[in-house]
């Protein structure tokens, strides 16, 4: 893996959080390619890779087989089923497969390690890419300032599936991440976690800054950390909400935003971060039975 990659940190912490045996399905992507080059595998748990867009469906099949064998008394122990997919294989091409798996109520946890672009194939945009970010398929140039579209809110789409547990997290807060994973494992039914994973290659920063950057994403509310358990929102709040430019200025993928003439774009980005943040806080209030002004 690239020096400073956050993906294996996420994978290790998700697996460590499980008391019970784990079976993994991984979508094609950075994690899959880097950990399983035949004849080597980095996985010490049962692992299956099928294709790019079908981790959700593939794991559904594994889980269905497990439920069947349990019913028949062939297996007695509890097994946790975990799917790993990048934002590519989850937000875009894998969305249908994920949605179906969540809708059908399989007892599995889907973890999206989200580096906000198709990193494995060379930094192409995904619907998880933030507005203004430079990617190879929506680059910054003379006429364009990087990605035009706002980032899709997949975590909220998952919450709208009314599944028992949905969470958004970051690599870099191991206590929060593992606690969320433990909570997920304690629940029977479909669970989804969207974990921000800075990518030094695609985002452009020093490899040792991965965890710092993720925490900065949290501190600026650029990437809120929260969970939705049976419709009840619980949002982690930064001690001090920092301006989003503090985060944007640390990465090459946003460098062009600081050219003269792009001030409005930076304002729009801050406004949208604030808007989504208030919406999230409002949902938290509503769920507590409070009034939203």
């Amino acid at each position, binding site marked *: 893996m690239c020096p400073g990659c956050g993906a294996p940190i996420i994978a290790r912490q998700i697996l460590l959080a499980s008391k019970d045996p784990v079976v993994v399905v991984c979508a094609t992507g950075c994690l899959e390619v880097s950990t399983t080059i035949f004849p080597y595998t980095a996985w010490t748990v049962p692992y299956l890779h099928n294709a790019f867009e*079908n981790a959700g469906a593939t794991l559904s099949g594994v889980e269905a087989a497990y439920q069947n064998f349990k019913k028949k008394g062939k297996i007695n122990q509890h097994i946790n089923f975990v799917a790993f997919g990048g934002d590519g294989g989850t937000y875009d091409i894998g969305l249908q497969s994920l949605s179906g798996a969540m809708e059908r109520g399989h007892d599995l946890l889907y973890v999206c390690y989200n580096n906000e672009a198709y990193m494995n194939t060379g930094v192409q945009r995904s619907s998880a890419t933030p507005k203004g970010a430079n990617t190879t398929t929506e680059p910054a140039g003379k006429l364009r300032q990087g990605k035009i579209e706002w980032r899709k809110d997949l975590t909220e789409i998952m919450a709208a599936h009314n599944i028992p547990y949905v969470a958004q997290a970051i690599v870099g807060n191991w206590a929060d991440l593992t606690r969320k994973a433990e909570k997920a494992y304690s629940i029977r039914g479909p669970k989804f976690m969207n974990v921000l994973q800075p990518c030094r290659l695609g985002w452009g920063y020093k490899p040792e800054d991965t965890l710092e950057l993720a925490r900065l994403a949290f501190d600026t509310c650029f990437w809120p950390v929260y969970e939705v358990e049976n419709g009840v929102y619980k949002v982690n709040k930064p001690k001090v909400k920092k301006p989003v430019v503090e985060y944007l200025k640390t990465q090459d993928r946003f460098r062009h935003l600081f050219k003269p003439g792009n001030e409005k774009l930076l304002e729009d980005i801050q406004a949208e971060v604030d808007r989504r943040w208030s919406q999230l806080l409002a949902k938290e209030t509503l769920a507590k039975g409070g009034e939203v002004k």
Partner: protein
Amino acid sequence: MSKVVARTGNEAMAEAMRQINPDVVAAYPITPATEIVMIFAKYVADGLVDTNYVAVESEHSAMSACVGASAAGARVMTGTSSQGLALMYEILPIAAALRLPIVMCDVNRALSGPINIHCDHSDTMAARDFGWIQIFSENSQEAYDSLIQAVRIAEDPRVHLPTMVTTDGFIISHCLDKIEILEDGEVKNFVGQDRAAKTSLLDINNPVSVGLLDLQDYYFEHRVPVAQAMKDSKKVILEVAEEFARKFGRKYGLIEGYQLDDAEIAIVALGSTCGTAKNVIDELRGVGIKAGMLKIRVFRPFPAEEIAAALINVRAVAVLDRSDSWSTQGGPVSTEIRSALYGKPSQPKIINFIYGLGGREIDLPQIRSVYEALKNVENQPLAPAPSGAGLVQYLGVRE
């Protein structure tokens, strides 16, 4: 004690699935295969099977879930047609390369475009390069019998390849026919109580990694065994058929000759058309014409030697293709027949008719016209190139 019942092709396949009682079925509806999974879903709802039924949200997910379940050691089945099979195309070769014994009901329906829900073989033929065993059925009885045999074929350790059993869409799938079904216990004994997979994702104490990335140094070596398994499967298909014949009386092979032994002119066909053709052959035989037919039951693996041997004394052969592969050299079956006969001592004249696309009816007059064409070709010198006029024709299309 087997009993005689009335079943459509879809009902017959669903019945066989009930008796096989797979661990997992992951399926999505598509005309004209829908009923198979609908009937099976009712079996699930009524507690007649122990299967975990995954009502997936697309055929791509159906085959993906089948791969997951099969890699977890389960006995897995599904069913589809046409666009559904096409949506599975990405995953079909993965299933074969991972050596997963998934069994699928494939109801032959034309591939779009244009969109058409009726029978032709384009969907199945387009999947011929994916490492799946492909068995064609002439009628509901064959569909029922072949589906049961397919489980044994696929799961045989010498094979371990996914297998599809096909019927002709609407013609067989929706046509009520008289079939003999076995007792539940007989089917269960034949296929075995469970798959007893040696390798499984659910074997926690022996973790495996399945579906790794191969670079240039390993991919080739991982593909060759699939070819070997396909070769070895011929023997297994015949062994399973022999056991089936011994226990239940009905005989099956890779191919079947009808009035072929002394035939001078013959057609080669797959599926329900073979049933129709038998009528014409009987007619022609009645007036002393030595007409015959070679029915191909197993298309993958392609039984080249058996076909060459069966056609050894035939002077002119018309290959009927119910799909066009647009190679401009004829349909997929005719191309493989030519290849099977290349270099062999007997060299019949071979002509190719592409017929029945999109459910276009093939009737007795059309089949008679094929034999007419064969009579004309029989005594002519062999034309120099396959793309010569008249060697590939469309049968039954309006000009």
